[in-house]
């Protein structure tokens, strides 16, 4: 039986981004193993996140530099994700940025284009529970990608998962880029950014055709020709 006061302490620190060390790891476990199935904790987390949003109003608004909107418009023209997704092949990112998914179990991202695989449904709470179950399976291979993210490779399934709940944001102006590596060949899968530190990517690909996944950090809107340096150093 979980101690909800202790859980609330972790959730309060988590939404403020103030946890480190063992507390951050404990929050990671809580968010992964308990929160998706606990209405009380989901409600608390939503409410605390709402508080962090409201606290943003305490600060006086300040007009951003006039260059910011043109910069955004330029980046939207050059790197709008909607056109980029159509080029994703052979794998596809079915869902990403799982914050909404974890907390509600529905309404997560449903990227419906790419790889010729057809539309996919949103990553549901059942999907997440399935990922957790698979991760606990002794036959499942779990690789540390670094950065708080893990690659989960279940047996006998043509899919891989990238999962993390405390993944740092990429550097300003950069995005994370996911690659499938086979030998010396790198295949671009897609760009992603964590939301509130959370990442949940489902990659539909036969693991036998991929040696490993790799995450690089690349300038937003850049052409995904070849992977640069890995974003994180794996501790595995």
């Amino acid at each position, binding site marked *: 039986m979980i101690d909800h006061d202790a859980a609330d302490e972790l959730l309060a620190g988590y939404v403020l981004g103030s946890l480190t060390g063992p507390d951050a790891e404990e929050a990671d476990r809580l968010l992964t193993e308990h929160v998706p199935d606990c209405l009380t904790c989901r409600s608390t987390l939503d409410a605390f996140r709402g508080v962090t949003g409201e606290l943003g109003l305490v600060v006086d608004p300040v007009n951003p530099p006039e260059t910011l909107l043109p910069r955004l418009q330029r980046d939207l023209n050059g790197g709008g994700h909607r056109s980029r997704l159509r080029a994703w092949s052979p794998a596809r990112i079915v869902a990403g940025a799982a914050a909404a998914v974890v907390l509600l179990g529905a309404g997560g991202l449903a990227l419906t284009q790419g790889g010729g695989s057809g539309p996919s449904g949103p990553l549901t709470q059942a999907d997440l529970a399935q990922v957790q179950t698979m991760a606990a399976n002794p036959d499942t291979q779990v690789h540390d990608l670094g950065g708080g993210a893990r690659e989960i490779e279940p047996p006998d399934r043509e899919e891989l998962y990238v999962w993390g709940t405390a993944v740092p944001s990429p550097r300003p102006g950069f995005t994370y880029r996911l690659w499938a590596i086979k030998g010396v060949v790198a295949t671009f899968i897609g760009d992603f950014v964590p939301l509130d530190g959370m990442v949940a990517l489902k990659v539909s690909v036969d693991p036998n055709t991929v040696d490993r996944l790799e995450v690089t950090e690349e300038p*937003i809107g850049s052409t995904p020709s070849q992977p640069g340096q890995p974003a994180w150093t794996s501790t595995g």
Partner: protein
Amino acid sequence: MAVQDTADDLELHRRLAAGDRGAFDELYRRYAAQAYGLAYRVTGQQMLAQDVVHDAFMALWRAPEAFDARRGSFRTFFLSMVHHRGVDQVRREQRLRARTEKAANLDPVEDEDPADAVAEAGYLSVRRKEVREALTELPAAQRQVLEMAYFDGKTQVQISEELQIPLGTVKTRTLAAMRKLRSLLEEAP
């Protein structure tokens, strides 16, 4: 008024999710100044603040489905995201170098033209007043740890060391502050 504006946000978000650039521009007009003010307050650096806001809007465009109206308002979703990214940048900067340009208070950025008044909807001003009042109702000790975490991007361990109080006390005060604010803000009309 506030209800109507919330509805407008939802409609803008719906259009944004459908790829409407006009909706993006309107959401930018509504929230860029608040987001920039927050990002600058947290990061203490104009360039970093600009990057934070830029990346938050890009993330909104790239993954509009991340917002779910059942979980809260668009405003709190977006500002929460900006804050989270701001804190991430503070952590990154702390690792790289000491901050050299720190916003010590809530004053406007120095090179901003004071006459360049920020145009914002009235309901934001009303809500700002409510949130500020709620903050003042917190016991001083709770407010202190909350502000150190939220506005200065400090970790609970750093707060514990700086205030020379046990880590457990920081956690307790943080939770009490968050619960109290939650309650006060839910009560606000």
